[in-house]
């Protein structure tokens, strides 16, 4: 389980951002999470609370938006979703699609600050 160290990275990043905006506090951290990031949502939420303790982020909320895998289907020549993470085939035509466009995200997209 590496979610605690990921959570600590999120806290570091968010603290830096809050400071750069001269914020007095942080209410919410918004995170985009892809299924291929290797990070489990529940474990991350649990770890986040621990990572926030005794930091300026204590009491803040982590809002996770889970985003799907998006591939570039070589047959449809379109952005497509896949059948599943166990079957990286175009959801429309069934072609195996190695070219992944989205799904690896582990990104802080926004924050709600008090200032």
């Amino acid at each position, binding site marked *: 389980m590496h979610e605690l160290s990921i959570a600590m990275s999120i806290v570091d990043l968010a603290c830096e951002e809050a400071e750069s*905006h001269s914020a007095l506090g942080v209410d919410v951290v918004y995170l985009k999470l892809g299924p291929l990031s290797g990070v489990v949502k529940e474990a991350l939420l649990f770890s986040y609370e621990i990572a926030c303790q005794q930091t300026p982020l204590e009491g803040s909320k982590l809002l996770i938006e889970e985003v799907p895998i998006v591939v570039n289907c070589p047959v449809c020549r379109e952005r497509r979703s896949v059948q599943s993470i166990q079957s990286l085939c175009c959801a429309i035509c069934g072609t195996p699609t190695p070219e992944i466009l989205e799904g690896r995200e582990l990104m802080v*997209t926004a924050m709600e*600050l008090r200032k």
Partner: protein
Amino acid sequence: MNPEPRLVEVRKNVLKQNDVLARALRERFREAGVLAISLVSSPGSGKTAFLERTLTLLHTRYKVAALVGDLATENDAARLARSQAPVKQIITGTVCHLEAAMVQNALDGWNLRDLDFLFIENVGNLVCPSSYDLGEDLRFVLLSVTEGEDKPLKYPTIFNSADVAVITKSDLAAAVEFDETLARRNIQAVRPGMQVLKLSARTGEGMPVFVKFLEKRRLRSRSTHAVGT
């Protein structure tokens, strides 16, 4: 009075520090002309035996070195040192994966220009290493025949993060009734087009093909670099 809440856009990768270090490492490897290969797998799938055999085979013709990650012991480094190649152990303590910073620190004092191949053995773990780029040119994921054919379906993320799959302990395949066709199908399902090699570090079966593969990749990455400069 409570201050007004305000929404600000951020858009920053959580692992940006690791990504920046990994990019710098990749650039260092390229400039030095060394091919960096990392190995990931579950514990006990034969990473160290495979690496020992590889180092021994390459050592006579190339300059090779290895970094090995482990939670607590230096056993792997001691085993690999028998190959005569320089080996450094990275003890991660409670951390269940290698990060780019650990690789960078471990390389301290090594002149990469003296090397042709650098191997990085990750901690035995099929989950956490998938999140961390180490700057390697190629990531090999190992699947031993004794683990079962459905490992790729259970751990799709790590298979997806790797470039090549290696089926290890092929000498035991018959004894455990390993269904190679099914294993290959599962690998292709989670990583379409992935190259698959099959070998046994114990008997040496498949090792020459693997060594040829490495030699070819090294030549290719060097010539790509030559064109780029």
